[in-house]
Every structure is written in C-alpha cells, then in structure tokens.
C-alpha cells in the first residue's frame, strides 16, 4: 500500500497548501461585514470545469495508485513470473507522447484563435491516441500468441488489467475529444472551444503520465526501488 499512501501524501500536500491560502486561522465570529477586506478567500475565478477536471484526475490517480499498490503486494508471492515486455510498447509510448504534443499544440492554437490549426491538432491528437489503442491491442495479441494468457500467471493478469483500464480511460477521453472536435468544426464560440481543448489536453497529459508510470512498473524497472521500500517497511 506504500504507493497509494505516497499518492495520498501528495493529495494531502496539495489540499494543505490550498487550505493554507484560505485563512483557516480566521475568527469568523469577529469578522462581520463586507468580504472585500479578505483577499483571495472568495470562490476562485477559474472555470469550474477545470477544477472539476482536476478533482476527477485525482480520482483517476487514486485508482491507478491502488492498482499498482495491489501489483506490488501481489508481486511478493512466489508464483510471480515477470512478463517479457513487448517491444511494440516503446512505439506505443512514442505515439502517446505525440498525441499529447498534438493536444498541447491545439491549446496553443486555441489561445491564438487559429481555428484551422486547432482542428488539425485535435484530429492528429485523436488519430494518434487511437493508434495507441491499436498498438496496445497488438501488444496483447503478441503476448497471447507467445502463451502469456490472462490466467497463466498473476503478472499477466495485472498486465492485462492495468493496460486495459488505462486503455478504457483513453477510450473515454476519445469520446470527449470527439465532442470537442465536432464543436471546433461547427465553429463554436472561441472561449468555449478553448476551454474544451484545454480540458482535453489536461486529461491527455495526465493519462500520458499515468502510462509512463505504469510502463515503468510493468516493465520491471522499478524493482530495485521496490526492494528498497520493502526493506524500509520490514
């Protein structure tokens, strides 16, 4: 459970930082009157959708932190046989990075009101993300072809489970991206479009980060680190 506790520590850190800005030391029973006197304690001016996305990403982060925590705990048992890393995962990682870059370009284009570029970047981002999914599916096929079935070993089960869960999140993201792209094509108001594109980009960058984290763990490069953690705990 050390990973999820680490994740929680980060969340608590962010919450504590935010709370420290909120004048928790105030004595509200003495402070009657207009609020103008207390800077930065009103509702922020950031669009609610962005905050909502931030909170949602925390939930997704918690989900993956828990999956990887379970992975580490299960790993300690004797029947664990690590899985060979399909080489196509490197290509997939590269494609997902491209996808994120494309969406970042879309954000920049949206800020500069370049609608044609926004559309191009959104479509590129969507196509590359889709290509990533196909790549993941090919990786699965490669593994099953070489006899690494879902039930053969817990390492395999976790590989399919975690990559599948990540893929589902990308798929959900594609639905959102699709509606924003459709909006871009219909020529929606610039502010609304920009918000949509920024939300997509946030989600994409986060899922890229999750993928890199998951990849490092599934490929087994974090094992030395885990050993250290385990030694510390016991």
């Amino acid at each position, binding site marked *: 459970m050390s990973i999820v506790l680490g994740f929680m520590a980060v969340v608590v850190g962010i919450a504590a930082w935010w709370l420290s800005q909120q004048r928790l030391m105030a004595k509200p029973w003495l*402070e009657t009157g207009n609020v103008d006197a*207390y800077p930065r304690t009103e509702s922020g001016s*950031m669009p*609610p959708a962005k905050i909502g996305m931030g909170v949602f990403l925390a939930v997704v982060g918690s989900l993956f932190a828990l999956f990887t925590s379970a992975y580490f705990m299960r790993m300690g*048992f004797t*029947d664990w046989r690590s899985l060979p890393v399909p080489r196509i995962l490197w290509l997939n990682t590269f494609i997902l990075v491209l996808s994120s870059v494309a969406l970042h370009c879309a954000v920049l284009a949206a800020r500069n009101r370049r609608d044609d570029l926004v559309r191009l970047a959104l479509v590129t981002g969507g196509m590359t993300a889709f290509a990533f999914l196909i790549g993941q599916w090919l990786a699965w096929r490669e593994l099953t072809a070489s006899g690494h079935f879902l039930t053969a070993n817990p390492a395999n089960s976790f590989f399919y489970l975690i990559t599948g869960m990540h893929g589902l999140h990308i798929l959900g993201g594609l639905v959102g991206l699709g509606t924003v792209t459709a909006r871009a094509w219909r020529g929606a108001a610039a502010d609304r479009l920009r918000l949509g594109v920024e939300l997509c980009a946030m989600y994409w960058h986060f899922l890229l980060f999750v993928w890199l984290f998951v990849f490092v763990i599934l490929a087994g490069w974090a094992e030395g680190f885990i050993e250290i953690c385990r030694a510390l705990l016991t």
Partner: protein
Amino acid sequence: MVDITQSGAEHVPPAEVGEVDLYHPHSWWTKYVFSQDAKVIAIQYSGTAIAIGMVALVLSWLMRLQLGFPGTFDFITPEAYYQFITMHGMIMVVYLLTALFLGGFGNYLIPLMVGARDMVFPYVNMLSYWIYLLAVLVLVASFFAPGGPTGAGWTLYPPQAIMTGTPGGQDAGIVLMLVSLALFIIGFTMGGLNYVVTVLQGRTRGMTLMRMPLTVWGIFTATVMALLAFPALFVACIMMLFDRLLGTSFFMPSIVEAGEQLAYGGGSPILFQHLFWFFGHPEVYIVALPAFGIVSDLISTHARKNIFGYRMMVWAIVGIGALSFIVWAHHMYVSGMHPYFGFFFATTTLIIAVPTAIKVYNWVLTLWRGDIHLTIPMLFALAFIVTFVNGGLTGLFLGNVVVDVPLSDTMFVVAHFHMVMGVAPILVIFGAIYHWYPKMTGRLLDETLGRFHFWVTFVGAYLIFFPMHYVGLMGVPRRYSELGDMSLLTDSAHSLNAFISIMAFIVGFAQLVFLFNLIWSIRHGKDAGPNPWRATSLEWQTAETPPTHGNFGKELPVVYRWAYDYSVPGAKEDFIPQNEPGTYPAARGH
C-alpha cells in the same frame, strides 16, 4: 473587534457572482423525473435510499427472528441467514447512509447553504442519480437471481465469497453485487465532483470558507474522502470479478473444494482485505463527518447559541478526514499481521479519538448555558451525542489489538459498530429530516407523531444494542445463524437474544409511523413559514418556500457574517441571518 479594513487589495473579488447556466425544464418529465435541479435530485436520492433502506430493515427483522427464536422459522436456512446479513450490511452502509448523506443532504443543502443557484454541473448531477438507481436495481435483481443474493458477508472476503459453499458464490449473486458496487462508485464519483466543485467555485459573494456552516464542511470533507477512498473498493470489485469470471488468481489461493483442487493458485486474500478496508475505514467517516456537521448546526440553532470553537470544529473535521486514511488495518488485527503493524494502527486509531473528542466537547460546551429548545431535531441531536460517545468508547476498546482479538468474533463488535455507525448517523438523519422538512415542503412534520417516533427509536435502539454488548462479552459469536448447545452460554444469553429481537420489531414499526408522518405532513402538516426555527444560514432566507428553480429568486444573497450569530447581545432578534449587513460592535466581547 478585529480591524477588517486591512490593506489587502491585491485581489479584488468581482462584484457580481458568475451565473450558472441553468437548464430550464420544459416539460413534466424534465421537471420532476429527468430533472437537473439539485433539489429534485436530492429528493430522488433520498427516496430511493429510504426505499432500499426499508428492504434492509426487513432483512434485519428476519435475522432477529432467527437469532431470537432459533429453529422456529423453517424458511430461514443458514444460507438465507447469511444472505440477509450480507445484504443488510451492504445496503445500510453504502446504499442508504452514503447515498442519503451525500446524494440526499449534499444535493439539497450545498447549493442552498453556500448561496448557489444549483450544482456546477447539473447534467452530470442528474446522471449521478440515474446511475445510482441502476446500481440499486442491479442489487435488487440479485434477490431474484437463481441462487439468490450473495451471502459472503458485507465485507465480501475472498476466497469464500466466490466459492460454491457460499450462497451466490458460483451463481449470479456475487457478480451482481460487484457490478452494482462498481456502478454505485461511478455514479457517486459524478455526484461527488459536483459537491466538491460547487463548494470550491460556486459560493456566493462574501461566503468565505470560514463562514460556511459546518454542515457544508462535513459534507465537503466527506465527499473528498469518498472520491479518494471509493476507488479502492472499485479496484477490489474489478479484481474479484476477474477472479470469479475469468479465472485469474489475484485474491484466490490454491484451494481444495469438496476434494477437488481448483484452478486458482497463489493469490492473496489479505490483499483484498487491504483494499477493502482502505475504502472501508474512510467510509465510516464518510458517513460520520456529514453527521458531525449537521449535528453542529442543529445544536447551535436549537440552543440559540453560536457553535463553540468553530475553528476547532473545522480543523477537527479536516484532521479526522486525513487521519482516517491511515487506520484501515485496525479492521484486520485478526488477519495475522506483523505485531509492529498492529501497534502502528492501534496508535493511529487512538490518535483519531482526539479530534473526535474535541468535537464532542464543543457540542457539549455549545449546549452549556444555551437557551435549549427541546424540539424534535434537538432531541435527535442530543441523542446522537450520547450514542456517539457510547459507540466511540467501545471503539477505544476494540482499537487495541489485545482487546480486539478475543472480542473480534463476538456480538460485542456488532453492538459497537451499530451504535457508532448505525444508530448514531441514523439519529442525525432523522433530526436533519425534521429540521429541513419545513424547507423542502413548507410544512412542519407532526409534533406528536415525531415525539413518539423519537422516544421509541432512541430508547428502543438502546434496548437493542446495550444488551448486545453484554451478550458479546459473554462470548456469543457473531455470524452464527444458530447457537445450538453451547455449554458456555447461560440461559440469560438466550433470553436476552429473544428480548433484543422483540425490541428490534418495535423499533422497526416505529419507523412506519415516521414514514406515515413524512407523507401525511406534505398536505396536512402545520404551515411552517420560511424560517420556522429562526435560523441564520442561507437556505432559510430564500424568497420562496420550498425554494424554486434557481434557489434565490432574482438576486443571489450577499453574505456578511458567519452562520452562528445567535443571541448576539444588542441585536434586535436572537438571530442574525448571514445575509444581513451591519455590525454590533459594542457587545461583541469574545
């Protein structure tokens, strides 16, 4: 008086509050069924939660029939008994308490109390309810599935949860249960995003965090915790579904069933317990924190006195929320963990009693020399304090490894968690319904029926659960459908069991009186007026009662003070609404 004209003009808040894009209903369907109005969604959530809660109540009756009068009722087989236990626990904890506090009270009170027109994402909020309803329907469907619902116990521990000997283990029961939970979590996440972001971004002008009523603080913190903790249950459910349907071995060890070696191997049941309780312990506080918040407001309002130690109350809520994530393994003392782990978790468990005790002291000190009105909400609030202290004290027993290990499998544990997590929050729910019903309907609940309901419920609950502690200490095990001839048990254990069962029936029937009151008073209750309790918080200051679509008429209120200005010396009345400007500096001598 603190100087409030400090020169902090670096950020001048906007003069206007940003309008939420309200979806205006066009037909009966979008107004009452597929509504995006948080108040309608709140009532939908509450209605569904109470309905499924009644099912769980009936299940508890069936269990008590068996325990009180073993061998009398043929239709309660041991398998059926386990199914009743499982569904009773799961429904009460997740589908009733969580849904009612967060989905029901959260939806109704957050926008009104922080001065917002609605939740920030009304459409997602609506989806949240419909997915919750779907989860409930899937759960109900498992009663009618072949083999019946799962009988794995509400904790669903593998390996037994998915094996042949457990009711529903190899039938549809466990699958439907897990799917239903996963749906619930998805639906809750949608609602939870709304509650959190509405508190963060939807507050009206002047409503700083430290001016929010404690109810909002409680629901807000509980929602944040739920958003982070429910994924643990989600992960556990998905992995167990894989084990059950696809034959993986996440949780399933090598196991022999009826002389036959199963295909599973090497999995860890303890892993499931860690995941389950990583959700399960915060869940206790997900239910308790809204109750804490609501009770603070009820006590302050009905004792006509400001809440004692508001700041401390807020810090305690946040502190309990954070601490509750590092105590989960105290549910697993008997799983054979490393003694140092047990020591660590016993310590954190006892530490969490500190902020909790602060809250109890502050409630008592709020009552001290207050102008206590023994209204029905106040009675329930007082009953909550007593019950919570009772349940909390046995929690200190069970938090210690050496005391927990012998008591863990007895009725003592059942009595403990029913006191602290069953009766206590339910009392708050009743108090809150009596308190806010006039705002929801414009009418008061009937006083006589209400007092009858209170006294039967309160005294009855004690008559049920106090003897249960004693029965547990005598060694009556939990999870047994029948005690049989246990020579260690005296006759008094058996007669107490019968007594508890009879009391359970009486208390259960008193709830029917409450339900009747709820429905009858919609039309026949006394007219309440906009602010029957003369309370300060914003929901009582709406232009119309019940509040209409958009909550606050044309203009949103502006907040000038905290929510607890009761009995301010020098003020015209004994309460000053939050949206009333003006100061009374002369007499404010804190």
